[in-house]
């Protein structure tokens, strides 16, 4: 790890430091940027991203080039399913949640089966799945209206529910605790690290690597589906490819948080900080009037720069 500058050895500390710097910078550029209300708004967006990144994080930790490019498609699909099943009525919420989770799990399962049984590289498998989902979304849109969020859902996502924090932030905290528990205190979590570090040795030690890897993709689909429901609550109604903008940031958040793209190393705490950092950065870029295209370029470049620093550890490992 000698090739990595000392600063970059503590991803969590860097992310927190960057968040603080960006907030101060934002306040200078546009007074009110770091106000409590504004920060809460940023945290809501960060929570949406963070929930997607939880699934992404699991898939990446599992190694063997694990990555899930289909999350954007699953988010969009989930938002449409939720919008139609609840269609503005609170009574439809349970069914909507169930439907979305089943759909997310189903496409995650297909990803997992493709990657393990058919040995398709995750990049190709999930990119193909993204294409399938995008086509499916077009078909759905031609047949049915996009639907509307139920009032309770919108309230949950945007309005304070407890101690002044919106429900989605509590949900994100719960996801954070769940992930920490899963990764540190369950055998399943230890096995994720084991297959991510040395899959062959893990199999020789009795770890059912294929089953675990399938489950990781299923969980990624489920997390994306949950994010899709929340996104519907955030925007009121779903629109075309609403989820697409989350795919690249979900990967950047994971890598920024110190999880190795080679797998087997990292955790979710850093990813949470990474998600907040990205949302604050995006907000600053908007404040200084950088177009969507410019923001995309900056995000892409961020990932490549991160790889430049973190990627070395991997090259040295193999």
């Amino acid at each position: 790890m000698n090739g990595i500058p000392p600063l970059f050895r503590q991803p969590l500390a860097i992310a927190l430091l960057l968040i603080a710097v960006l907030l101060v910078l934002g306040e200078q550029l546009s007074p009110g940027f770091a106000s409590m209300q504004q920060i809460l708004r940023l945290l809501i967006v960060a929570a949406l991203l963070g929930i997607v990144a939880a699934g992404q994080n699991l898939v990446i930790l599992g190694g063997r080039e694990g990555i899930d490019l289909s999350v954007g498609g699953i988010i969009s699909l989930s938002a449409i399913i939720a919008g139609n099943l609840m269609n503005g009525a609170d009574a439809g919420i349970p069914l909507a949640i169930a439907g979305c989770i089943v759909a997310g799990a189903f496409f995650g399962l297909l990803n997992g089966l493709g990657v393990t049984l058919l040995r398709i590289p995750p990049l190709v498998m999930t990119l193909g799945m993204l294409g399938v989902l995008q086509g499916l979304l077009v078909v759905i849109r031609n047949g049915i209206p996009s639907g509307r969020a139920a009032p309770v859902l919108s309230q949950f996502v945007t309005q304070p529910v407890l101690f002044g924090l919106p429900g989605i932030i509590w949900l994100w905290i719960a996801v954070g605790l769940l992930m920490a528990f899963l990764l540190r205190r369950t055998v399943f979590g230890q096995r994720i690290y084991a297959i991510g570090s040395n899959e062959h040795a893990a199999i020789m030690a009795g770890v059912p690597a294929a089953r675990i890897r399938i489950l990781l993709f299923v969980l990624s689909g489920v997390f994306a589906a949950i994010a899709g429901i929340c996104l519907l609550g955030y925007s009121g109604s779903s629109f075309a490819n609403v989820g697409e903008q989350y795919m690249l940031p979900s990967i950047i958040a994971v890598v920024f948080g110190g999880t190795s793209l080679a797998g087997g190393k990292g955790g979710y705490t850093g990813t949470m900080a990474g998600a907040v950092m990205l949302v604050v950065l995006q907000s600053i870029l908007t404040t200084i009037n950088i177009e969507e295209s410019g923001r995309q370029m900056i995000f892409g470049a961020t990932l490549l720069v991160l790889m430049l620093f973190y990627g070395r550890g991997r090259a040295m490992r193999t």
Partner: protein
Amino acid sequence: MSKLVLRDVSKTYGATVALSHGDLTLEAGEVHVLIGSNGSGKSTLCKIVAGSVRPDSGRVEIDGKPVAISGPQAARTLGIGIFYQELSLAARRTVEENICLSDLPMKAGLFIDRATLSDRAARYIALFDGVTGEGFAADAPVDTLRADQRQLVEIMKTLASEAPILIFDEPTSALDRAQVDRFFEILRGLKNDSRTIVFISHRMDEIFAIGDRVTIIRDGRTISSMAIADTQPPALIRLMVGEKEELASASAPAPAPDAGKTALAVSGLSGPGFANVGFDLKHGEILGFGGLHGQGQSAALRALFGANPYVSGTVSLAGHPVRIATPAEAIRQGFAYVSGDRRRDGVITGRSILENVTPIHFLRRRLALVRPGALRKAAEPAISAMKTRFAGFSHPIDSLSGGNQQKVVIARWLIDRPDILLLDDPTKGIDLSAKADLFALIRELAAHGMAIILYSSEDAELLANADRILVFNGGRPVRELTGEDRTRYNLYQAAYEAAFGAA
């Protein structure tokens, strides 16, 4: 003038001397046999001639002129053609393409000249007319062929190099009798054309059938070269193992409580790399797998553990037949497996020592939650039984020395003790004191009734620790050595013996 002369070549890997004084003189028009025990330096010497290993010192001469064989490409230009034991064929290409692979005929410097290629390949295919077997054709893709047919293609490819010096490293391991006979006829023809052939085989009968001269290598030195006609198999084996007679363990181990009961019965086990492996293993017994490197010992152990498939045969545990398809199933049935290749099969790199000790415990106890306190308590006795030196359970395993890493890997099997322990060359690359600790532990485990199979590429280890030794050659057990018969001499006599029932 000799065709090729190696004078006093040496090669050292780190602290290991692979070859200290290697001499080899090859004449034109002879079949020259190389023999040596495991780790003798035979394969290093061969690799030096092939250009895949560069010697640290010494001289190499071809036709009396000093040369440097700087790489495989240079070896080819110098007129050396090599048959690779690990097949070097392009699986998706056809037989004829593979035969001409190293020198594809071109048209206009850009396109493959199909007609010339077919003509040229046909000459070498014709040499084996009648013995190639069903499904063999010039345009058949190599991955559709059987193992013996692929080996024939490898031979044809080597012959197609038309090099004055040809090196064959175990070219006959997969061939049947008729194919071997034909191959030997071809070699005799080449010999009459004044070509030089180096032949490595693990079959004494083949060595005496085709060899003109033999060079014996032991402990990194060339011991002797002589005409085959002037010697006999026992004398060769004597030269190969040396005068010092390493005896089997003097003291028989104390009988275990349930000693005598069969723990594992295997019969007719066959799969990729091994065939017709059968034995009974009793509780408290250490069964050795011996023979030269790579004769199917590892492959059979991995198949028993569910890591490699087996095609036929039966495995029964304490009298009950089982079919094991994955390591997880094997572990639940009471198997343990320790590999010498710990970086591939053992160590979970980058994770803590605790995480490296616990996976078997998780599986056998069907645990779902990690309780570090309880796990440390459970792992403590296992890891101290191995006398592992480490600073703390939370340290990364990579911070330990190789020997200590291997001890941690072994300790993972000792929390919930298995019934059957499979040791696949477990001491490869670890220090002497770790080896001593490991064998002390193995003896103790056997004394408590564990049934153990030990494959070791170090003969001394095997002779000192195994109660019985099954000697493998060409994927098959060829002889069993028990009691007073467990000597280095017998080990090598058996290692060079033709397999039971081999055609």
